[in-house]
Structure formats: C-alpha cells, structure tokens
C-alpha cells in the first residue's frame, strides 16, 4: 500500500516535470484537438498539408532566428534579406541560368548574415545592440532591394525547375514543407550534437564566462547571424517560386513573425536556452491558430489582437521561468 502511494507521488512529480518540459507540446496537441472539435474541415489531410505549407516560410526564417536567439542575439534584418534575395533570384533569371541566380541569391543572404555577424562580433554586442544594429542593416538592405528593382515588382519566374522549389512535391509532402523540416532536422542535430551548437548555447548563457573558457565566442556569434541570413535567402527561394512576382517589400515585418514563433516555442529571450524542436512547435501553434481563424473568417484586426495576446503571454511565461 505504502509503495503504491509512493509510486503515485513519484508519478505526480513526473507530471509536473512533464508539464514544464513539454508544456508547449501539450498546448499544441490541445489546440489541434479543440480545433478539430469546433471545425469539421480542420482535421483533414488537405488542411493539415495546407497549414504546413503556410508555416514553412516563417518556419525557415524561424530556424535561423533560433540560432541567433539561443546565442543571445536578435535579428531584425531577415525580412529585408528575404526581400533582397527574392528580387535577385527573380531578376537575375532574365540574364542568367536558374542555378546561377539561386547561388547568387543565397550568397547575398549569406553576406548579409556575415555583415551582421561581423559587426556584432567586433562590438561584442548584447541583446540591445543586436536590436539596433540589425534594425540598421534592415533599413540598408530594404533600400538595396528597392534600388535593385527601381521600386517595381518583378514578374515571376517561368522556369519549371525553379518553380519546383515552391510548388513541387517530395512524395506526398510539398517541397516547401520538405525544405523546412529538413532544415529543422539538420539544425536540431547541429545544436545538440556538435561543438559549434554547444558553443551557441554557451555564449547565449554567459558570454564572458564562455570567452574565458576558451570558446571562440566571436566566431560563433558571427556564424549564428550568417545562418539567419542564409535561412532568409532560402525562404526567399520558396516564396518567390510560389508567387507570380517578386516585390522588393515582400519581407516587411516577417522578422517579427519569426521571432514570435521562436518565443512562443519557449526559447528564452535572454539566450542560452531553447531548441529547434521548440521552434517547430511554436511555428505550428501560430500556423494552427491562424488557420482556424481563417476558417472562421476572423477579420484582420481580430487576428492581430490574437497575435498580440499570444506574444504577450509567451513573453510573460518566458520571464516567469
């Protein structure tokens, strides 16, 4: 009898521990169950794939953002980077082969990341510095995108191989979803299994202690921003092979959606904590909520209200930790 009581006690502890560790996953499951109950069209294969496809672009941005935020940083420039890489990949296809255009656009994303990362590494920037520095680069890069097209929207690509990125399928899985999940998988592996990944957590956890432990903090910090820039360019490939055109302002505010997803997933705003899986769940939660609101025909302003409340709750939970 007493053993039974002890076992129950033990399991109780485990439940509270579970709730702490998997709370965000439980939230997603509850959300999906509730949505299925209130809407018959929600839990269908078509709608599920639809949600995944809708979240994949924000998801890819959020993958890069997760590296930066675990490393104790912040990147406001990814939206602009997406715009710039997008107009470049479409614009260059007029004169160059698709492959060259893609490589050029990815390189642009990479370079923006290197720029952000180098500035951050040189000035040993913390969270607040990152906010203003990437705010600055955001403006510069947004201007470059506008200059490149002269403010105009470019007509979409006619290339079938390029359009496969956004519209193709791998088996039953849409290509954008495939790219997103592959990136999540690789990134999760990098964060949990490599020395570099451990370094990212360390410098986010305590920059000075990591530096004095002989961790190459500057290099790692720069690389996290580089990954974010590269992810923004990849997201641009996906978005611009789906849409019929490339607008130089297409990425405006995208960075905030990415940050929201990372924070909702439970990655700490102060760095050092979090995971790619959490980000995946955060992305799915936001996507599900937005999908359900669309099914029920919520107005744009109502959707903004819900989004605002979600961010506030996520930040409150983060600071309570």
């Amino acid at each position: 009898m007493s053993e039974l009581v002890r076992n129950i006690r033990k399991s109780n502890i485990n439940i509270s521990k579970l709730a702490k560790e998997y709370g965000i996953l439980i939230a997603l499951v509850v959300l999906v169950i509730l949505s299925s109950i209130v809407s018959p069209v929600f839990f269908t294969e078509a709608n599920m794939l639809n949600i995944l496809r809708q979240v994949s672009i924000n998801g890819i941005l959020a993958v890069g953002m997760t590296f930066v935020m675990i490393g104790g940083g912040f990147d406001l420039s990814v939206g602009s980077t997406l715009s710039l890489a997008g107009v470049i990949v479409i614009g260059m296809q007029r004169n160059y082969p698709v492959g060259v255009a893609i490589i050029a656009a990815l390189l642009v994303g990479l370079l923006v990341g290197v720029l952000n990362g180098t500035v951050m590494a040189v000035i040993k920037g913390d969270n607040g510095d990152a906010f203003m520095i990437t705010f600055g680069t955001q403006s510069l890069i947004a201007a470059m995108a506008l200059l490149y097209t002269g403010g105009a929207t470019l007509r979409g690509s006619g290339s079938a191989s390029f359009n496969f990125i956004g519209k193709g399928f791998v088996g039953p899985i849409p290509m954008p979803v495939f790219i997103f999940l592959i990136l999540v998988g690789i990134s999760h592996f990098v964060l949990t299994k490599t020395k570099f990944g451990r370094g990212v957590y360390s410098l986010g956890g305590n920059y000075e202690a990591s530096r004095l432990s002989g961790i190459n903090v500057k290099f790692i910090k720069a690389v996290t921003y580089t990954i974010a820039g590269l992810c923004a360019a990849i997201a641009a490939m996906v978005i611009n092979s789906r849409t019929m055109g490339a607008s130089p302002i297409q990425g405006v505010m995208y960075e905030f959606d990415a940050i929201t997803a990372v924070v909702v997933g439970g990655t700490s705003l102060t760095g050092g904590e979090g995971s790619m899986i959490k980000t995946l769940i955060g992305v799915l939660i936001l996507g599900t909520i937005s999908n359900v609101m669309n099914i029920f025909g919520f107005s744009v302003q109502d959707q903004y209200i819900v989004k605002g409340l979600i961010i506030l709750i996520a930040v409150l939970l983060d600071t309570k930790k």
Partner: protein
Amino acid sequence: MSDVVLKMVGITKVYPGVKALDNVNLQVIKGEVHALAGENGAGKSTLMKVLNGVITDFTGDIFINGKKIDMKSPISAQENGISIIFQEFNLVNTLSVAENVFLGRLDSNKTGFIEWSDIYTRTEKFLEEIGLKVSAKSKISELSVAEKQMVEIAKALSYNAEIIVMDEPSSALTKTEMDNLYNIIDNLKKKGVTIIYISHRMEEIFKISDSITILRDGKDVHSCPIGEITKNEIIEKMVGRSIDVEFPKRKPFLNNEVILEVKNLNRKNVLNDVSFKLYKGEILGISGLVGSGRTEVLRAIFGADKIDSGEIIIKGKSVSIKNPISAKQHGIAFLTEDRKLEGLILKFAIKTNISITKLKGICTFGLLSNKKEKDISGEYIKKLGVKTPSSKQKAINLSGGNQQKVVLAKWLFSESDIIFLDEPTRGIDVGAKFEIYCIMNDLVKLGKSIIMVSSELPEVLAMSDRILVMHGGEIKGELGSDFATAEKIMECALGNPDDLLKCVLNSPEVS
C-alpha cells in the same frame, strides 16, 4: 529576562526536493548584535528572506515585540521596522544619495512639487548620524562600496528600522572601513537598534556580537551568548565535525624547472614591467590590495585583456597569447574571481559547465556524447565532493562552495599544467575551503603549477611556496614562505619605497 524584539518560531520552508529551513527558531533581544553563522547553503539567507517578506510560502510564526506578524511582503517587513542590507545593494546607481534614501517616498507638497531642500536636509541628518561624509546630492555611482553600504544603513534609519539585518557587510571592505562599520554598529546599538549580523569571519563575530545562532543544513543547531562559545566550537557546529587545522599540510616544492616566465609585462595604467617566474610544482601566491593589479596580471597572461608589451615564456619557449583560446592551448587554466559572472553559466547543468573547457573530450566521432559528458562530470563531482543529487542540476541551485568546486572541475577537466586561481575560496564556507586547499595540494603533487591570487593573508601565507606582493601595477616584493609574515606583506602592499627595500632584503634570494 530582557526584551525579546524578534522571535521566529518553527520556520519551515520547502523547495522541491530540498528542505531549506527545517523548524528553525530564532530569538533576538532588543539592542543586541546577534550573529547568524553557518556555511553557505545552511539557510541563513532563506531565513532572512522569510523575515523580510520576500518568501511568503513558509510555515511557522514571526513575533515582533511579542506581537504576531503576518509577513506577507517586503512592505509589511518595512512597516514592522525590519530592514535588510543585502550583499548586492538595493541602490539605483544613477540617482543621488537623497533620492535613494527616500526612494518611493519622494512625496510632493501641496503645490504638487517635491520639496528638495527638505529631502536634502533630512538625508544629511541621517548621513551625519552615521558619519558618512558625502553630499546628499552625489550620485551613488560615484561612491565606494563602503559608502554605498552606509547609504543603505542611512536608508534603514530613515525607515525607523528597529531591526537591521546585515548580510556579510564586511566582505568587500578594507580594514579602516570595517572599523568604521563597527563604530556605526556600536552607535546604532546605543540607540536601541537591533542588528542581525550574518558573517563568515570569526574575528568580527567575536568582536562585535553579543550572541550567536548557528545554522546547519536548514536547522538551528545552537544559540547562545557569545561569551559561552569558542571559535572552534562555532566552526565545529557549523560544519558538524571538528576541524583541527584550517590549512592542510604539504611538503614544499623542490624543483628548479621554470614552467612559466613573464618578462616586462606592461598594460597602460594597469601593469608596469611585471616580471616573475613560476616553477613546476609550486604554489605562487600573489598578494596586494584590491586594484593593485593582482587579477590583471593573470588576465593579461591568459589573454583576457590586451597587453601593450611583454614576453611570456612557457616551458622555455616564447609564446604569443592573444586570447583565452590560445592560453588554453598553451596549457593555462584560469579560475576567475567572480564565479557567477565569469566562471559559470548559471542556467546550465553542472555537466555542461564542466565540459565547456574541453568539448573535444566528450565527443565520440566528433559528435557530443551525452553519456560521456555524464560519466566524466560524474567523476569530477565525486572527486571534488560536489554536493548535488545529479550532474543535471543547474549551477544556479548550488551553494557557493559547490559552485566553486564546479568551476574548479571544469578547469581540471581541461588538464592544464599551469593553473591560475583568483580568490579560490572567496565567499565559501570553512569546510569547502579546506577541501579546495587539499585539491590544490594534490594538484602540485601531480606536478601542476599554481598561481593563487588572494586577499586573505592567512591563506596566502599558509598555502604559498613563494609570495609576490603587488602595488600600483608593480611587483613590490617577493617573499619566500619561510620569511613571509602578514606584516611584511602589508608593508609591501602599501607600496612605500622604503618598504620595498625592506621586502627585497627579506626575500630569500638576497639573504
């Protein structure tokens, strides 16, 4: 029976998995200085947080002047005349002394404006009372640590505090400042203010307190007037066992092999032509006052700060150390002064903190292995006696002594031959100190070499084979352990040229 001003009865506070306070009783008499002693993690701070209304989910009762008090917030503590001065001060650096003293109480007059002249006069009255000679208008950031502490006391007085709790107030003070603090405490006592004094230092406990309560593992193990107990009894009750010697014995090193040599190290306004040798298997102590360049020497060699000029020679080879990464590659480890800010990643697990200096060491096929990390950190936890249920415990949940052992573990894991220890036993309890000394002795026995910076003279004297004394960024004296005395070290540390001569004359190489 004298007046009992404070009575805490049966206080119990449970954290998940730990009983931080277990039925603790504390009785303090009006107008006395009551010392609260105990190792780190014994529950002193938790008990004071209960008293201050910061922790409210406890069981037990608090009586002030015989009246039962429902201590539900720091405000009710304030209303009941309790004021706590924490080690980390509660002052706003960017505001003036007066604004800090009256923080939250800058009431406006009928016209809706703050009456500054009145605030300043009232503040100056409190400052005068405790003999603090700064203007009420000066900014907190311009004050020294001792002055900040006195502003805290002035603040407590302004609340008409009947009971003032001081949490290790002397830990950052110089000797003169400490004497001044004792005077203030005396004056407060005369006014009938009761002081609860938390401290590690036996000398001051005996110097100023009237009675003492000793906590161990969340229980009050002993309480008595100070005259009825000896220093050794206190230590014994704190650690639960008797400690005969405070420093473990060790054979002095006998080796002429120079492992590290520093020549003419310069950093503008910080270090001036610092040169010395470190021999294999020795403990080299560096003494000097705060700001004398002790820590800066270590940081400069380790590549943590840039140097202007100088040569570093390791095992006979001149090396260039630009950053901590290359320092580590050259076999140097550096246990930093501030373990919370520079030593540990507090929100990380113990194992993650240990493995950080040599991630390669926990890899299989180039990938991090959880199992290896767990096994290796488990080994160090056992070897150094870190008290923790698991290597997954976060560093922030450990007591000071255990945190320090984790920092030590991480640098032992790097398997460096040259080990810099900056204040290795600051703020940790007697038992843990002794254990760290033993570890140091084991290390030199294995042929490692240690440079230890320390403010505690007995520690420097007992542990070092040789002692360098610094002042104003220069080495002012070198003393062999046979010749060194606290007086000689202090003479050199004060940096008078006459004293310098004396030091050199006293150093073993000359004599």
